């Protein structure tokens, strides 16, 4: 059996906040299915963060993660995860794979951090013979990524940006309206993104009674059904996203409850983040070369300090 040491074999920066890591793990690449996630630990002192698998390549034996630098850990990963370095741990694939149904016409919606993980689903549906319409939402054209990848596997692509700098101007929900207007025979909508966006999607399809699956991303510790931190209300039941999900019927998920529970550690996380960025600034004063050695451009650094004022990561996601 091939064991992995979680080596990072490729990295791509889509924007100042979004980056892609390809981690070598042949066994996981073989096992992964659309909709599953991993839990990553950056170092021995790190926290366990759940990340949806954005892609997997059995031939190369790699798992692709697309990450938004929004908190302490994801920003530290942005600084430290270079090709050739290693993660301390990565476990998965976790969760029940998304059922790629026999739907004939499917809309795959991805917003913000959900654009990457919706890709394997779109590809899965296409391979199952469905007519796939992808709707992708970004804040502006600088943040757009993987447009070509989606075009290659989807029959239609609706690109939405908040400022109209690429594709149509508007929220993801406007994109859904366009899709619904153009097609009366949509069997299923799959939406991944920030909770506010998924909530808006579920609301947009509720009247037409179109089956809408969402992939929730609550706070987790172990990811194996042991801590119960990731519990979500689905209809009148309480489910654990890590082992009962992460996909649930969007019309039944209590998004307000989900968003409230996501804010549990906001205060302490902000403190940890401030402390960490403070120590980074000090490094910068002591010796800027240290950061250059990490490969951070001047532009990158400037953008990062702006980011410190970023409020809740989910607030400025499209569709919200």
């Amino acid at each position, binding site marked *: 059996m091939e064991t992995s040491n979680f080596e990072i074999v490729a990295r791509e920066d889509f924007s100042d906040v979004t980056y892609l890591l390809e981690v070598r793990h042949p066994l996981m690449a073989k096992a992964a299915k659309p909709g599953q996630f991993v839990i990553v630990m950056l170092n021995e002192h790190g926290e366990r963060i759940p990340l949806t698998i954005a892609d997997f390549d059995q031939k190369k034996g790699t798992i692709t993660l697309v990450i938004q630098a929004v908190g302490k850990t994801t920003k530290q990963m942005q600084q430290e995860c270079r090709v050739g370095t290693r993660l*301390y741990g990565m476990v998965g694939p976790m969760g029940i794979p998304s059922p790629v149904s026999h739907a004939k016409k499917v809309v795959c919606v991805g917003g913000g951090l959900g654009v990457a993980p919706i890709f394997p689903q779109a590809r899965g549906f296409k391979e199952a013979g469905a007519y796939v319409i992808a709707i992708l939402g970004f804040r502006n054209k600088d943040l757009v990524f993987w447009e070509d990848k989606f075009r290659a596997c989807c029959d239609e692509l609706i690109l939405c940006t908040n400022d109209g700098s690429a594709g149509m101007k508007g929220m993801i929900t406007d994109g859904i309206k366009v899709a619904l207007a153009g097609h009366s025979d949509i069997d299923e909508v799959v939406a991944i993104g920030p909770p506010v966006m998924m909530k808006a999607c579920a609301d947009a399809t509720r009247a037409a009674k179109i089956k809408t699956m969402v992939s929730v991303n609550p706070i987790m510790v172990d990811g194996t059904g042991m801590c119960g931190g990731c519990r979500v209300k689905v209809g009148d039941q309480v489910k654990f996203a890590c082992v009962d999900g992460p996909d649930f019927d969007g019309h039944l998920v209590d998004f307000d409850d989900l968003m409230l529970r996501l804010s549990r550690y906001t205060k302490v996380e902000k403190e940890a983040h401030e402390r960490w960025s403070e120590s980074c600034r000090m490094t910068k004063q002591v010796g800027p070369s240290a950061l250059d050695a990490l490969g951070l451009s001047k532009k990158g650094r400037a953008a990062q300090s702006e980011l410190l004022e970023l409020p809740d990561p989910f607030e400025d996601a499209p569709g919200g």
Partner: protein
Amino acid sequence: MAKKKTIRSIPQERTPMREQDPQTRAKNFEEVACGYSLEDAARESERCLMCPDEPCISGCPVGIDIPGFIQKINEKNFRGAYDILTDTNLLPSICGRVCPQENQCEGVCTVGDSLEAVAIGRLERFVGDTAIKEGWVNIPYIEPNRFKVGIVGSGPAGMACAADMAKAGCDVTVYEAFHQPGGVLKYGIPDFRLPNEVIDAEINNLKKFGVKFECNTLVGRLFTIEQMIDEMGFNAVFVGVGAGYPTMLNIPGDSLNGVLSANEMLTRCNLMRGRDFPNFDTPQPIGKRVAVVGAGNTAMDATRVSLRLGSEKVYCVYRRSRTEAPARAEEVHHAEQEGVEFHWLTAPVAVLDDGKGNVRGMRCVRMELGEPDDSGRRRPVPVAGSEFDFEADLIIYAIGTNANPIMGQTSKLKLNKWGYIGADDKLATSVAGVFAGGDIVTGAATVIEAMGAGRRAARSMKAYLGIRDAGLPYIGGDGAGTLFGIDTRERNFARVRVA
């Protein structure tokens, strides 16, 4: 030959174990009980009558030769005591600390009929700790065979099973989903009861036996049990994944921020070192006023961890009375000493909201004990009109766990109606070559029971593989006389030798 001991000739009082002062220890994560000194151990060993019927051995789930090792302590032959202990129990330092001895060996001790029972657990711990300090490892002569054995879960059941299979000569790999091995010993039981160094020492011993540990591996999802047998070349697999799917109360307010399972709270603190936040990245919820629901060992751990994290007030709320509390008596006593406030016969009705989605308190109702229920304990019945509210900003549920669903989702293993893995009295599951034991078969139980199950499964696995060793009586002709359709006598071929 020494004069025969009688109940009157032995030291009457049980030798006390030095403990950290309650006020001091409630603020640190150092071990509460400091262990026996050499003199303490020698004195306590005097108290064993060496009675001929040895009830303690049958009281021990793994059948340790208790009078045997106590005799060696008495002779000041500690290495000898360690050798006897490790014949049956490879993890004496762990068991000496976490076994509920009062319900097991000490509960049936002859001395205990008239005086306090011999402190078997403390003596066991003394021997185990001495071995760690001295660096003793008992590596038996292992004759390798051609069998590959996979163990799923590195908790107490998996560790015990791994040890026995490695001793029998198998190539053993233990898979663990977390980034560190140890299972509930690491994530659940806090340092002041069972220090991480002790667990690591015992795990290192297993490594010296040739046991391999693979962390970050979620069996079922990364590969399935069936794949282990069919593709990965494992001749037998033991599943000991535990039952840690926490139960919530299902009362109004369950999902408010500030309500969490004891599992989450303890995992953050113990394994993820949330108590050292922000030096470690995992945040730790810390309440000013904490209410822990339940009165098992996990509940006691949660209350005492809360105190150490700096909570001002810690309540323990339990719907039955102290007599029915499932926790070890010593744990309840320790918690009480440290300042935990117990509310017996009190059941939560609702968690109260502060209007912003956070916990502000809990509504409870007083209970009284009625007729005995199925478990033989008197059933608590609410007292009408006795509802009352109290303030709390963190509520921890320690009310038990259910079966983890991953094995059921990903394998053909037959489950029972509660979702636990179905296993026969030899701990064989419905899939040939796959055995299971511990909490995932019985539901939440104790560390030593899980270890006992791991060892029983190992015995069955050896029989299944046709490995015969001294400890294995010839199994055959047990009624049916067949194992998976093959005559058992036929499968018990002579031990396979590797050239």
